[in-house]
């Protein structure tokens, strides 16, 4: 934990940068002058240097084995773009998208006639671009827009899903620790007994779910 000393002209971040030789000119001079006069900061500086030196002296591990890839580990050649999906995934994707859109329309009708005047649709997955290779998303492989749409639909609309995919929409360039885009949950209108509409919504959501899941399965099988 950093401790900020209000009367001091230099703080921990300055001292840390100073240790790295990253301060120049006036900033560095300020630290030089202050450290000369301040025992506490001198001590802090010495402590930082000690930590840095200790870390640098940690024994360096060598790789326990060769991590060279075999042909069997990889596809024949790295591709600059996603492979053309083929017909089945396109159909499934289209079905999922159409079902989702129709669902959205019904929900919109539902809500504008109902209690809550505003709702937000998810924006995140729609802006997700094909993953570059430098984004390892753990268990989620790079997916096309239609799939993230379908996969995100049950989560964003509050339907019980098996596992939410919170990271599916994060763009690779986002800071891995704070980044991730805003996926605003859409608010469902309160139950007010329009059961026919509900059934239609449920059916469309189901279709979107099934189509999305099938699309994922098809893609996974193709990657095998």
């Amino acid at each position, binding site marked *: *934990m*950093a*401790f900020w000393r209000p009367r001091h002209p230099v703080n*921990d*971040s300055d*001292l*840390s*940068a100073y240790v*790295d030789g*990253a301060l120049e000119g006036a900033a560095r001079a300020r630290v030089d002058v202050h450290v000369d006069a301040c025992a506490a900061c001198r001590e802090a500086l010495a*402590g*930082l240097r*000690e*930590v*840095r*030196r*200790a*870390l*640098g*002296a*940690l*024994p*360096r*591990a*060598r*790789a*326990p*084995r*060769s*991590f*060279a*890839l075999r*042909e069997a*580990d*990889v*596809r*024949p*050649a*790295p*591709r*600059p*773009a996603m492979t053309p999906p083929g017909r089945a995934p396109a159909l499934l994707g289209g079905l999922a998208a159409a079902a989702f859109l129709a669902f959205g329309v019904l929900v919109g009708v539902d809500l504008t006639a109902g209690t809550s005047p505003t709702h937000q649709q998810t924006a995140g997955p729609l802006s997700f671009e094909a993953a*570059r*290779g*430098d*984004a*390892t*998303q*753990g*268990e989620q492989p790079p997916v096309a827009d239609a799939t993230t749409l379908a996969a995100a639909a049950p989560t964003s609309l509050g339907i019980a899903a098996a596992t939410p995919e919170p990271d599916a929409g994060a763009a*690779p*360039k*986002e*800071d*891995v*620790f704070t*980044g991730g885009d805003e996926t605003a949950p859409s608010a469902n209108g309160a139950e007010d007994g329009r059961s026919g509409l509900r059934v239609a919504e449920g059916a469309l959501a189901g279709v979107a779910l099934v189509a999305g899941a099938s699309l994922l399965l098809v893609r996974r099988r193709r990657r095998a």
Partner: protein
Amino acid sequence: MDAPPDEAHLLERSRQGDLAAFNEIVAAYQDRLYNLCLRMLGSAQAAEDACQEAFLSAYRGIAAMRGSRLKSWLFRIAANACVDELRRRRRQPQVSLEAPVPGAEEERPLDVADAAAGPEQLALRGELWQALQAELLRLPDDQRLAVILCDVEELSYEEIAVSMSTSVGTVKSRISRGRARLRLALQGRPELFGDLVRLTERNPG
């Protein structure tokens, strides 16, 4: 560890799908990436898995990779693989991050130091390394990563910023906070550091 002299050529060949060329890049960077994963995750097995995953990702993405800052790019992939593993661990509540991680003490073939060091010094040094690794694992992930990239792998602030997909200012802040925490945590054991000066004078970094 330096980049291979013909790295640009290997990179170009790799982009065209030449696996042998890519494997030369692997050979050049695997020690460093493995070391990063080991320090980040505290487990030899986890480090091995993360490292394997990182190189697979790298091969798949190398054709789309822009520019020629291969080192930072590779470190970013390895860092992401570590973060993924840390997230996976958090989703399994029975795995405690505070518990001593098997393999944390287990150092793979090391560039071990000074043959002339006596047994007492070696024991003390071993204690310091263990204490340091244990405290590293207690840091928040972002601070741990920043500190390792800076003080263990000796990347520049700019390279670290690329590897963490963030700004230099954020990098500085994370390094600063991480070091301050480590210092605070180890303050109670001055005897560990007392020997360090002598040790590091004999084996510089």
